[in-house]
């Protein structure tokens, strides 16, 4: 280990984040491998190690004979300061090589409030921030993840963006990059080749056009033969898709330390606020046989004590009962437990949770999202009052003492009556709790967690205005007052962070200057309450002449050209508008898996083909 690093480590918090050598990490030979790619996670190690996409892509890169894949995370602030003081650049964990020596850096864009972290990582790595500034010898900066569907605010920093499932297209990208390196092909030419791949977007080949009012009018291609629309990549059969049979086991405690299998991808419940529910369609399941094989391999290779069944809505997996029973039976004796990441709001889900969680150690969480049936119909959260109270009742009855309920405020059409609905649900839930926990030592508690609705691209609410900061604060205060009740605790999110998220979620290329300025002013880790500084962001917006409200709080017209119109997730804009109209009429749309095709427009879909 570098002597400077050796001396820094005792002076920083959690130094084991930076030491490498974890079990199952892959160390390929630097000198004899043609192409080096570093996966870069724009947050600390503890958070990044939980990311499922990273786990998959890491192994795909290293499976390619000519390629080597390593990892880098954003060091915490104390470590950054020490590195700068010692003159150390950001390095990859495995080889300790500076990021600037890699051929490709691959960022994942998980949420908009990590954008400053992306820029910060480039800064720490001594790589020029902007794609236009980078030279032939600088690494190729690519990005993927859910935010690639509305990536315009950050594209000036990126050389190419990958839409949708990465498993197959990454191999193609690597193949082209290896050939380019072996044949000394210029970066510009490589980007041209990459732009021809399905689902790969090379932003610098397009220019954004604005009218005299400063409204975005679309993209203009700067070269010939460029696609005007980028269609996402889709892995059609998950059973045949690559899934690693091993995983890196961190030495220290990180978020979600467990063996993860992905039971399915996509969700068609059709909640109108949910971007993931639109961009990951269609629903694709893995078979129980394949999952059991993957679990066996993972437990054998990692020794983890917990198996997590991951997806957007695991309760909807068609063989969930069978899968859980068989896994519990097989692993109970070895001290290995099963975990469900999310529960549907019904008693069936509680039964599942009961089956796997023998100790009712923590609370149980449900997400009714809105306080009245009216508003739940608006957002198409197909949960009834009866479902909710059934779920709460089953949970308290099964022995849980704490029920946590997730809601959003600021949803389209929301009135104070809907907030009253949240209050009465909380009180009724607590009442139910008292029925089952009157005599015990521990009293029942209900936690109400409230976040602010942020309109997202590719959803039926993509045209809507977000509530202003003032209104959201007023709504929070209203809830705080009315939820001040013994046995109920109230948690809420930072409204200003949500406002920033809203700006970046539906912004255009002009925001790149704002992001860069924010980093210069000291912004990073914007999703961390203790680091977020709204004043600095206000300053950055002002310095770059951007009106945040224009992006966050403005109602868009039906025919407005949106900065993500060219980035296609398969669900049609017409369908999204129809869903928006239904929302305002308080009409629901059922899940197409259990009824008929709802006409979302997906080009490859087995439900529509079923007829």
């Amino acid at each position, binding site marked *: 280990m570098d002597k400077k690093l050796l001396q820094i480590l005792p002076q920083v918090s959690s130094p084991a984040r930076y*030491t490498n050598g974890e*079990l199952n990490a892959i160390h390929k030979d630097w000198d004899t491998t043609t192409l080096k790619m570093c996966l870069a996670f724009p947050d600390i190690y503890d958070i990044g190690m939980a990311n499922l996409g990273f786990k998959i892509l890491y192994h795909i890169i290293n499976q390619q004979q000519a390629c080597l894949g390593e990892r880098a995370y954003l060091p915490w602030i104390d470590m950054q300061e020490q590195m700068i003081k010692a003159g150390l650049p950001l390095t990859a964990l495995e080889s300790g090589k500076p990021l600037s020596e890699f051929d490709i850096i691959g960022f994942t864009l998980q949420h908009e409030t990590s954008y400053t972290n992306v820029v910060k990582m480039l800064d720490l790595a001594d790589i020029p921030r902007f794609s236009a500034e980078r030279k032939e010898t600088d690494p190729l900066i690519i990005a993927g993840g859910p935010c690639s569907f509305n990536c315009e605010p950050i594209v000036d920093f990126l050389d190419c963006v990958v839409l949708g499932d990465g498993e197959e297209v990454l191999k193609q990208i690597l193949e082209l990059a290896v050939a380019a390196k072996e044949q000394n092909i210029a970066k510009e030419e490589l980007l041209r080749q990459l732009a021809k791949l399905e689902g790969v977007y090379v932003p610098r080949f397009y220019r954004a056009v604005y009218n005299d009012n400063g409204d975005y009018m679309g993209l203009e291609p700067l070269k010939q033969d460029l696609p005007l629309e980028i269609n996402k990549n889709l892995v059609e059969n998950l059973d045949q898709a690559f899934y690693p049979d091993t995983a890196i086991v961190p030495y*220290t405690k990180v978020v979600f330390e467990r063996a993860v299998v992905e039971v399915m991808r996509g969700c068609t419940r059709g909640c109108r606020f949910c971007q993931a529910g639109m961009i990951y369609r269609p629903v694709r399941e893995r078979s129980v046989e394949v999952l059991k094989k993957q679990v066996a391999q993972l437990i054998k290779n990692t*020794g983890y004590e917990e198996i997590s069944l991951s997806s957007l809505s695991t309760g909807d997996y068609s063989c969930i009962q069978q899968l859980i029973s068989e896994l519990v039976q097989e692993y109970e004796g070895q001290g290995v437990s099963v975990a469900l990441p999310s529960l549907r709001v019904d008693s069936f889900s509680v039964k599942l949770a009961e089956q796997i969680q023998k100790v009712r150690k923590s609370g149980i969480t449900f997400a009714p999202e809105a306080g009245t049936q009216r508003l739940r119909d608006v957002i198409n959260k197909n949960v009834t009052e009866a479902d909710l109270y059934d779920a709460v009742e089953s949970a308290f009855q099964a022995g849980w003492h704490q029920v946590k309920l997730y809601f959003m405020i600021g949803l389209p059409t929301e009135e104070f009556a809907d907030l009253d609905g949240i209050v009465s649900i909380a009180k009724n839930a607590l009442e139910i709790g008292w029925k089952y926990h009157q005599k015990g030592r521990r009293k029942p508690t209900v936690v109400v967690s409230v976040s602010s609705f942020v309109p997202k691209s590719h959803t039926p609410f993509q045209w809507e205005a977000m509530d202003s900061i003032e209104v959201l604060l007023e709504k929070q205060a209203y809830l705080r007052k009315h939820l001040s009740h013994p046995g109920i605790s109230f948690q809420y999110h930072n409204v200003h962070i949500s406002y920033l998220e809203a700006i970046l979620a539906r912004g255009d290329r002009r925001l790149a200057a704002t992001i860069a300025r924010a980093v210069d002013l000291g912004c990073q880790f914007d999703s961390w309450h203790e680091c977020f500084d709204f004043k600095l962001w206000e300053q950055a917006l002002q310095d770059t002449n951007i009106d945040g409200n224009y992006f966050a709080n403005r109602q868009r017209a039906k025919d407005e050209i949106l900065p993500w119109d060219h980035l296609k997730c398969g669900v049609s804009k017409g369908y999204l508008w129809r869903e928006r109209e239904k929302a305002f009429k308080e009409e629901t749309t059922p899940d197409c898996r259990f009824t008929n095709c709802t006409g979302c427009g997906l080009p490859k879909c087995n439900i529509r083909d079923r007829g």
Partner: protein
Amino acid sequence: MGKSIRVRFQVKETCRFISHLDKVRSFERAIRRAQLPIAYSQGFNRRPRFAFAQALPVGVTSDAEYADFHLTEYLEAERLKIALNQVLPSGFYVLEAVNLPARAEALMTIIQAAAYRIKLLEQASELPDKIGNLLAQKSIYIDKHTKKGSKQVNIRPWIYQLELNEDGTELSLVCACGSQGNLRPMDILEPLGLKLEEVLIHREALWIEMDPVRRTPIDIVGG
């Protein structure tokens, strides 16, 4: 012979910043990967039954970590050693393993002393004098932070030996370790005018008996 096995293992550089609890979990997972016939605790939260000796301070490497593994059947100690080394992360290595007699005393309770080697990364001035001064004192009070707050403790009685090697690049320290009295090796740095980032600390030995002969937790099994 009983069904328990005592091992001595190394903590190498890549593992030195891992907390005691994280080391325990690394071994739990290694046991599961090696599919050893480990005994499990009873109750809802079933944990594999093994115990470490005195916790190694974070930041310190070691050649003298000890752990007892309680198995459900007799297993030759050497086989456990090989099996663990096949699955442990690269920062750990099992150096030796012995089968314990039935009803051996628990590791935690028998440790008395430890030896450390403190490598100096930077030139330190007037160290011999500072060592002389330190050893000449009858009491050296330092702040000890506990769950109940901080209190002053006298660490002088716990320092048995402190020497600088000939070329002045390394200190060797023998001190109390265990439930009867426990000196963290970093606690002597400040009195010597040294900083944590200027040294590398390595645990060389743990002893269960100092007089008349020094005996390790593994020596006691043979004798």
